[in-house]
Every structure is written in structure tokens, then in C-alpha cells.
């Protein structure tokens, strides 16, 4: 722990291109872009599958298989495949984003799909009874009701992506992984430990932000927030279903 503190409190490590703030910014950029790409693919797909029940088998299995692909191997394949076709930094950044997005899709997909599927059938019937069309039911009833599980999927994807973005450094990119890879090269344990602590802290900080957003985005009717006397559904059950689905 002393090594970590010594390294972290050295002002020289906090300035410039290879300073901690710049590395954190790079790390967050890779993670955020990959997560946005994954969310754009996985949330609509998950909503569609959950709403129609079509392609359930396919989605569950493809997502399961995607989990088994080792990120490091996929990264190297992508760099060798795409690298020669792209120029400059893009030759490494694009492959890295592809790998992180592949990593993030399964949990987000499982969350979105399980979220819609778990919606109370009576709520869906009531929406239809009120004259809502299919898309209206999906966007105005199923989506808000599915939000807790969608967030749960997004958050578990975020944790994985932030932790895995460290491998960007193995192909010469930036991010906090640089502290690990460069530290390994010169056997600087203080720097490596500091890098590990920073990645874990970053992952937790991002998760905390998601928790806050979730608190205000999810309808009070679902969480029981500010309406303690009329609690509708315990949140714990939502989390455990995600585990069994995934």
C-alpha cells in the first residue's frame, strides 16, 4: 500500500500526456464510446425480442457464445484484420472499440430482454385495453417498467468494460492500462498497483453515477421511492433474475 501512496502522491505522475488525468480521460473515452455503441445495438434488439418473443433462442445463445470469446485474442485479431485498412491511431482505436462493444452487448441485451419479458402481464393488458398500439405499449409501458433491469445490465457491462479497457495498452494505446503495461516492463510495482487501484476506483465511480441516474430515471411507482407506504415490488428480485438469465 505504501508503494501505491508514494506513486500516487508524486506530482510528476499527474501532469502531461502520460499523467493520470489524461490516462483517465483516455480510459473513459474508450469505455464510453464502446458502451454507447453496444447500447445502440443491444437495447433496441433486447426490447424487440422481449416485446415480440421472437428470436429469443437465437439471442440468448449468441449472447452466451459472445461471452466466451477471449477479449485479448479478439483484440489481436481485429488489429491484424482492420489495422492495415485504417490509418494512424484509428488502426488500433477501432479494433479496441469493437472488442469492448462485443464485451458489453451480452449483459445489456440480457437486461433489456429480461426487463421487457418480466413486465406484469396485467400492466400490458391494461395498456392495450386503454387503446395503445404495439409501439406505444412498448415505449410508454414496457420500457419504463423494464428500466431497473436495463440499468442493471448497463451497469454490469460498464464494470466489465472499464476493467477490460486496460488491454488497450497491449496494442500501444493509452488509458490506465498503460500504467500496468509500462510498470510491468520495468518491474515498477508501485506504478502497477496504482494503476489497478485507479481502474477499480474509476469503475466504482462510474457505477455510482449510474446508480444516481437510475434513482431519478426509474419511476417512483416501481422503486417505492417517496411512496414507502405503497411499495409495489422489491428490487432484489430484479437483480437475481438477471443472474439466472445470463
Amino acid at each position: 500500500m505504501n508503494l501505491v501512496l508514494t506513486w500516487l502522491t508524486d506530482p510528476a505522475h499527474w501532469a502531461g500526456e502520460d499523467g493520470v488525468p489524461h490516462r483517465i480521460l483516455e480510459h473513459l473515452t474508450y469505455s464510453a464510446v464502446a458502451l454507447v455503441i453496444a447500447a445502440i445495438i443491444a437495447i433496441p434488439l433486447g426490447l424487440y425480442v422481449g416485446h415480440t418473443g421472437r428470436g429469443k433462442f437465437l439471442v440468448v445463445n449468441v449472447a452466451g457464445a459472445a461471452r466466451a470469446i477471449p477479449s485479448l485474442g479478439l483484440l489481436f485479431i481485429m488489429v491484424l484484420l482492420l489495422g492495415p485498412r485504417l490509418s494512424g491511431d484509428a488502426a488500433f482505436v477501432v479494433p479496441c472499440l469493437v472488442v469492448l462493444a462485443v464485451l458489453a452487448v451480452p449483459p445489456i441485451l440480457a437486461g433489456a430482454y429480461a426487463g421487457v419479458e418480466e413486465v406484469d402481464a396485467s400492466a400490458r393488458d391494461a395498456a392495450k385495453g386503454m387503446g395503445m398500439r404495439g409501439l406505444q405499449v412498448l415505449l410508454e409501458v414496457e420500457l419504463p417498467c423494464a428500466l431497473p433491469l436495463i440499468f442493471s445490465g448497463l451497469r454490469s457491462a460498464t464494470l466489465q468494460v472499464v476493467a477490460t479497457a486496460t488491454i488497450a495498452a497491449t496494442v500501444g494505446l493509452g488509458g490506465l492500462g498503460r500504467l500496468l503495461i509500462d510498470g510491468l516492463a520495468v518491474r515498477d510495482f508501485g506504478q502497477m498497483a496504482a494503476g489497478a487501484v485507479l481502474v477499480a476506483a474509476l469503475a466504482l465511480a462510474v457505477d455510482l453515477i449510474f446508480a444516481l441516474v437510475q434513482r431519478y430515471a426509474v419511476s417512483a411507482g416501481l422503486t417505492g421511492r417517496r411512496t414507502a407506504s405503497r411499495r409495489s415490488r422489491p428490487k432484489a428480485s430484479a437483480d437475481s433474475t438477471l443472474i439466472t438469465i445470463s
Partner: protein
Amino acid sequence: MSWSIDHLPAVLSLIGRHVYLAGLPLLLGLLIAVPLGWLARRYRVLYPLLIAGTGLLYTIPSLALFILMPIFIGTRILDPVNVVVAMTIYTVALLVRTVADGLGAVPDSVNQAATAMGFGRVRRLFMVELPLAVPVISAGLRVAAVSNVSIVSVAAIIGVPQLGSLFTDGFRRNFMEPILVGVIACVLLALVFDLAIIAGTRLITPWQRTRRAA
């Protein structure tokens, strides 16, 4: 294709290393997670602590954990024990919650019936609660198995040989075939682990089969 044929014995031995490095932690992690999950269930105060604590472990990047292990347990950097211990930590991180939730899902009426039949606390745990929690625990174990197989490959960066060595080796020589072989072997290995867990679960939960058949 010629590379694969020439290097078949080497690839097979890497698969063996990979099975050991990903499989042993799965067993060790399960052995540690069961008592922890039981504790989390038994003493409600501990539940949030244990769940948050083990969740925290999962945010540590695998590369960092592999590198830092020697500092914590005093081994050498290339010692495979580092990888086994690190992977055990990840397995425990994933499984404690699953075990706690699995034990929690056992119906109260079943527990009460067991107690009424004269089962003591320990005998009830091993003969009633744990067997009934097997399907939930096995779902968690499948997730852990697949992620273990994938994470172990990162250990190639610190030079511990397993299928991930094919990635670093191929990348260094700008040679696609070993990387492809490694990825395919990893995915197949994950599939084999997954099927083995499904088969094992079916074997020790015969009542689930009869229920489905009925």
C-alpha cells in the same frame, strides 16, 4: 492450416494448462463461496457487506490482479499459482451472491418440514437446502466457468503459458493463424466446461428430471 498441424502437440499441451488454470479455481471458488454465501444468508447484517465486498473484487482488472498477486502471497511473478489464486478470487466474487440467493430461494415450508422431521441445522443445510439450491448455484457456476476461460488468457501478458500464449505469440509475429486457433480453442473449452456443469447438475438433481418428464 500447416501451422496448426505442425504445432498440434504444443496446442494440446496449452489446452491442458488452460483447463488447469481455469478449472481448478472454479472448484476452489465454489468451496469458498458456499460457506460465505451461507454466512450472508444466516446473518442478514453480513449480506450487503459480503455482496458489496465481493462485487468490489470483480472491478479489479485481471491483468492487475495477476501482476500484483506476488506482492500479496509472496510468490514469483511467473508462478502459475498467482493465476490460480487470482481466478479463485474472481470465481468467489461471482458465486457468493448466487449461493446466498440460491439458499434464500428454498421455500420456508420445506425448511420447516425438514426441521419438523428432526433435521438439525447442519444436516438440513447439506441434505435439504444445498441440494435444492443446486440449480441456481449451477447457473452462477456456468457464468463463472465461461468468464474464467476467457480471463485466464490475459495471463499470457505476464508470461504464464496457456491458450493466451497463442495470442501474444501470433500478434508479435503478425501471424493470424495461432491467434485464431487460440480463440476457437478457448470458445470450445468454454462450451465443454458449460456442458460438463449442465451434465453434473442433471446428475445430482434427479428430481428435476422426473418433474419435467411428468
